[in-house]
């Protein structure tokens, strides 16, 4: 990143196939804008996301990671997002405990009908990551490089 250039964060968004990915699709077909900094990875369900995926994204240079899934109660597989919710709560709390800025991770429930919400959430998240700046802490916790 050169001095004059604006900081463009790298953001990974894990979206569940049944709700949030369709929500993103709706946002697109409705011509709702959200920053191109968001890279979407489609997953079968929010509970497919292993905490390692999130850490791996950070390790590979992501500045923020967001997980989107069906609203609790609306999971295509009935209960997947409930498990994801517990898992992510604990993971985020652990990252916070280790001194990683807690704004870098987020979970949002976006249904297939919520194109507007998808776009708002992504705009808001990118804004948050821009204010936090580049991710240095989670990229290398042991600071060996």
């Amino acid at each position, binding site marked *: 990143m050169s001095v004059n250039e604006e900081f463009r964060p790298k953001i990974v968004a894990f979206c569940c196939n049944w709700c949030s990915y369709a929500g993103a699709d709706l946002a697109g077909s409705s011509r709702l804008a959200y920053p191109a900094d968001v890279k979407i990875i489609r997953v079968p369900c929010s509970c497919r996301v292993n905490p390692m995926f999130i850490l*791996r994204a950070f*390790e590979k240079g992501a500045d923020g990671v967001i997980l989107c899934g069906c609203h609790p109660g609306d999971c295509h597989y009935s209960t997947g997002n*409930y*498990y994801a919710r517990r898992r992510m709560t*604990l993971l985020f709390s652990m990252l916070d405990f*280790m001194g990683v800025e807690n*704004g870098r991770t987020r979970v949002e429930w976006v249904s297939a009908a919520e194109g507007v919400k998808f776009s708002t959430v992504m705009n808001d998240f990118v804004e948050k990551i821009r204010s936090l700046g580049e991710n240095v*802490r989670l990229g290398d916790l*042991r600071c060996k490089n």
Partner: protein
Amino acid sequence: MQELKARALELLKNGTVQRVLGWRIGENTYDPEPAFFDSEEAMKDFVYNNFCAANLSKYMIEACKLEGKTLVCLKPCDSYSFNQLLSEHRIDREKAYIIGVGCKGKLSIEKVSQAGVKGILSVTDTDPLQVTTLYGDTTVAYKDAMLSRCHVCKGKDHVVYDELIGESEDTVDADRFAEVAAIEAMSPEEKFAFFQAELSKCIRCNACRNVCPACSCRKCVFDSNKFDSTQKANVDSFEEKMFHIIRAFHVAGRCTDCGECSRVCPQGIPLHLFNRKFIKDINNLYGEYQAGADVEAKGPLTSFTTEDAEPSVVSQGGIR
């Protein structure tokens, strides 16, 4: 100790058990090591004293694959690990004959040297400890030589056993979550500096993983799938960096807080802090849960309620 040894020998002789899983005299008086004994001859080296800190429950995974019953000596905290392994179907209750052994708090030779004692030749496990050193004799108070995990002991009741031998003494004199709460109260910069300092000591020896009764996968994510000899080396930088978060997460909700990870760390990293943070969060968010207390209980990460907290609680002031 004599009563335990005699009983173990009796059960071995009358054929109730095929082997005994206990501790053997180490190179010094203060480093007994886990061992299997399958004959009267071998039992000569059997020992149980206040330095026998190792949790033997994990060895039962292998022992259960062998023919016949194994007699296993479990301390109160080890019995939680045994129960947890039972609930995960990693061990077979029918293959184990459990003697619940008494525990008065376990000693650590590191604690003795940290108390300023140098050139240790021999040490007793009495209260106070009588230490013979190159520079003369000295004493160390029992509490000062005790492992830090024993100061926050879960209790001296065995949750699973066939018979009990030996007396226990209460050793709790500190709050189990005090260390975690102290870190939670720090600023993000302070927290990061603290963990950076601690974790950069790590040499990736994998001792914490190997000793952990909850870390019992046949195939571990940290092992190389190519060469056995490189299993201890980091295969890529990702593992190196995130090892500790992942290790702790993999045992979240299953960790009984036995404290073996911190005990075996050659670099003295307080690894139990990660596990205890998860336990604290689980207790706060999903109700009090002690892994291994109840074999039938569902783990907090393999169950849910519709009213669970949203992950956003973390950014809204965190879980306290």
